[in-house]
C-alpha cells in the first residue's frame, strides 16, 4: 500500500516537473513572438488632402486620399496620422512645408500632392514625400494620366513610399490572377489587390487552370483544355496572345523558378503524375520524382534551389521538400491527412498551404524546417489555395465565408481580411504577381 502511495507521489513530482518544463518552454516562445512583433514598428505618416485647382471635382481629391489611406493601412507598416488643422493651402507649402508643426505632432513622414488637368484632359498629379525630422524631400514624382489611370498611379506612389521608408516593396501595384466560372467556363482573370481593375484574360470557352506569373510578371503560364487535353500555355499579358508550350498528355500546376529559365510542373508518365522541370530556353523536360503515387503542385523556394510539392506516397497527400535535382526528399507536414496547395513565401521564412481537418479546409503555415505549424483561418467556411504577396506579409486565398467561393487577402496574423472578388461563380487558384 505504502509502496503504491510512494509511487504515486513520485509520479506527482515527475508530473509537476514535466508541467513546469512545459510552462517554461511556452514562456520562451511567447517572448520570441513579442520580439518579432516589436520589430515591425509602424511609421507615422501625415496625409493631407491633395491641393487641386479642380474645384469642381473635390470627390477625386477625396478618393485619392482614401486610396492612399487604404494602401498605407493595409501594408501594416504605417500609421496614417490625421493632421487636418495643418492642411497646406498654397503651392509653396506643398514644396516647402512648415515641418515644425508636423514635427510637433510627432509625424515622421509627410506626403503632399497637387492635381490639375492639362489641355488634353489628362490629369497631372505631383506627389512629394518628405522626411519631417530633417525637413527634406525624399522623393517627388509627377505623373500624367487619364482618369482611368489615377488609381494605379496612387498605388505606384504608395509602394514607392513603402520602399523608400522600409526598404520593402509594397503590394498595391501588383495583380492577382485567378480562375472563375462566371461565364460558365473556367476562364483566367486578373484583379488589383484592392478589388479594382477586374480583367478577363482568357476567352477560349474551354477549361483554364492554375495560372502562374512569370518572373517579370509580363506573362502567365496556364493549363488549358482548348485542344481537349490539359496542355501548358504561356499568355503574353501585353496583347493577351497565348502560345502552347507542352501539348499532349497532362501538363498541370506550372511554377516558374526565380531564375526565369526553368519551370516546374506536373507531367503524367503513363498515368502517373510526377514533378518535372521544363527549360524554357532549350525546351527540354527533365523528370524529378519517381514515386508510384501522385506527385504534384511544385513551388520553388525563393532561392530557386528547392521545391515544395504534394505527394501521397505515404497514403495521404502531404507536403514534401526536395532539391532542384530531385534529391534529398523530406516530408514537411505530418499532422492531418490532407495537406495540399503549398506556396513558399518570397521571404523564404514560411510555407502556406491548406489542410482539411474534420471536413473543413483552412489555411495553415509552417516553417520550411517543419516547425511552428499553425492555422491562419478558422470557423469561416472553407479557406483554400494560399498565395503570398511579393513582400511575404500578405496572403491571397479563396474562401466560402460569404457564401460562394470568393477571393480574399489577409496578413500573416490571419487578420485584416479584405474581400476582393465576390459572387463571380466561384474563384479558384489565386496567384499573386511578384
Amino acid at each position: 500500500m505504502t509502496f503504491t502511495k510512494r509511487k504515486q507521489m513520485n509520479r506527482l513530482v515527475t508530473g509537476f516537473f514535466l508541467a513546469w518544463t512545459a510552462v517554461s518552454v511556452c514562456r520562451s516562445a511567447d517572448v520570441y513572438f513579442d520580439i518579432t512583433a516589436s520589430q515591425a514598428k509602424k511609421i507615422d505618416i501625415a496625409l493631407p488632402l491633395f491641393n487641386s485647382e479642380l474645384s469642381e471635382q473635390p470627390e477625386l481629391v477625396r478618393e485619392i486620399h482614401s486610396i492612399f489611406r487604404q494602401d498605407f493601412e493595409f501594408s501594416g507598416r504605417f500609421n496614417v496620422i490625421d493632421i487636418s488643422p495643418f492642411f497646406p493651402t498654397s503651392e509653396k507649402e506643398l514644396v516647402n512645408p512648415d515641418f515644425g508643426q508636423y514635427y510637433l505632432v510627432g509625424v515622421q513622414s509627410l506626403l503632399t500632392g497637387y492635381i490639375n488637368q492639362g489641355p488634353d484632359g489628362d490629369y497631372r498629379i505631383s506627389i512629394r514625400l518628405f522626411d519631417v525630422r530633417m525637413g527634406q524631400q525624399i522623393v517627388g514624382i509627377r505623373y500624367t494620366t487619364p482618369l482611368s489611370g489615377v488609381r494605379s498611379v496612387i498605388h505606384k506612389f504608395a509602394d514607392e513610399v513603402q520602399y523608400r521608408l522600409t526598404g520593402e516593396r509594397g503590394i498595391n501595384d501588383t495583380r492577382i490572377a485567378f480562375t472563375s466560372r462566371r461565364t460558365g467556363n473556367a476562364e483566367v482573370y486578373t484583379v488589383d489587390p484592392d478589388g479594382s481593375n477586374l480583367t478577363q484574360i482568357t476567352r477560349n470557352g474551354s477549361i483554364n487552370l492554375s495560372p502562374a506569373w512569370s518572373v517579370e510578371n509580363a506573362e502567365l503560364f496556364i493549363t488549358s483544355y482548348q485542344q481537349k487535353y490539359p496542355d501548358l500555355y504561356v499568355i503574353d499579358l501585353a496583347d493577351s496572345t497565348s502560345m502552347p508550350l507542352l501539348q499532349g498528355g497532362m501538363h498541370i500546376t506550372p511554377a516558374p523558378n526565380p531564375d526565369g529559365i526553368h519551370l516546374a510542373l506536373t507531367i503524367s508518365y503513363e498515368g502517373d503524375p510526377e514533378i518535372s522541370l521544363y527549360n524554357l530556353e532549350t525546351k527540354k523536360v527533365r523528370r524529378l520524382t519517381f514515386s508510384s503515387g501522385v506527385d504534384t503542385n511544385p513551388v520553388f523556394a525563393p532561392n530557386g534551389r528547392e521545391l515544395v510539392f504534394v505527394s501521397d506516397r505515404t497514403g495521404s497527400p502531404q507536403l514534401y521538400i526536395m532539391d532542384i535535382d530531385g534529391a534529398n526528399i523530406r516530408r514537411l507536414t505530418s499532422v492531418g491527412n490532407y495537406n495540399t496547395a503549398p506556396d513558399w513565401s518570397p521571404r523564404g521564412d514560411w510555407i502556406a498551404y491548406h489542410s482539411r481537418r474534420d471536413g473543413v479546409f483552412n489555411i495553415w503555415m509552417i516553417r520550411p524546417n517543419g516547425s511552428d505549424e499553425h492555422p491562419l483561418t478558422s470557423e469561416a467556411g472553407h479557406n483554400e489555395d494560399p498565395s503570398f504577396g511579393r513582400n511575404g506579409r500578405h496572403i491571397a486565398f479563396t474562401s466560402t465565408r460569404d457564401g460562394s467561393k470568393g477571393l480574399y487577402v489577409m496578413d500573416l496574423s490571419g487578420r485584416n481580411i479584405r474581400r476582393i472578388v465576390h459572387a463571380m461563380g466561384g474563384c479558384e487558384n489565386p496567384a499573386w504577381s511578384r
Partner: protein
Amino acid sequence: MDYFSGLVQEHSRRTLVAVMISTACHLLSILLIVLLPMLRARSIDSDHVVDVTLFDYALPELGSDIVPAAVSIEKPKPAEPPKPVPKNELVDPSDAELKRMKNREKDRTPPPKAATEEEFAMQSDLLPGGGGQTMGSMRVDAKDFPFLYYLAMMKSKVSENWIPPFGSFEAENKRVVISFRIDRQGRLLASGIEETSGDTILDQSALRAVIVSAPFPSLPEGYSDSSLGVHFGFICKL
C-alpha cells in the same frame, strides 16, 4: 517471517531510498529552474530577447588598414560634388531611367577634392526601435549624412532579415560588426565581417542579414558621393 516477505521488506526499503533520492533530485532541478531565470533576470534586462542595439565607439575609416584584408571593402573614389539640385524637384516616371544614367556618369567623373570623412554620430533616440544610450548600431562613412530616414530604413530592413542564433549560449551578449558599401542605386558593392564576435554562427547570421537585405532603395538625391559605407553592429542578447 518467510523468505518472500523478507524480500518484500528489503525491496520496499530500497524503493524508499530510491524514491527519496529521486524526490531530492527533482526538487533540486525545480529549484534550479526557478532560480536560474531570476538570477539571469537580475543580470540582464530581459525585456527583449534580441535587440539590434546601438553602440558608440570610434570605428576605423572604411578602407583603412584596420579593416581586415579579407574583407576588402574598397572605397570608390568620391565623386564630384553635384551641381546644386533644384530644391525638391519632381521626377517624371519616364525620366527615372535617364536620371539613373546621369547618376552613373556622375559616378565616373574624377573628384576635384577628396571628401574628408569623420564619424557621423547618430542620435539613437531618433531611430525607431533604437537601443539605449550605451550601445549603438550603425555608423556611415560620410562627412555629412543627414538622411535619418534612410538610416532608419536600413536598420529596420536589416534587423527584420536577421535570424539570430537562438538558443546558442556562445552567442550571448557578443557583438559582431558588419561593414558594407552600397552604390547610388542601393546595390551591395561589398560586405564583410569587420569585427568578429568570436562566434562563427553569429557572425554569419549577421552577414547574411545584410546580404539578404540588399538591394536597398537608391541613396538620397541630396547625397553627393557615389557610394556609402555602412558599419552595422549586431548584439545577441538572450
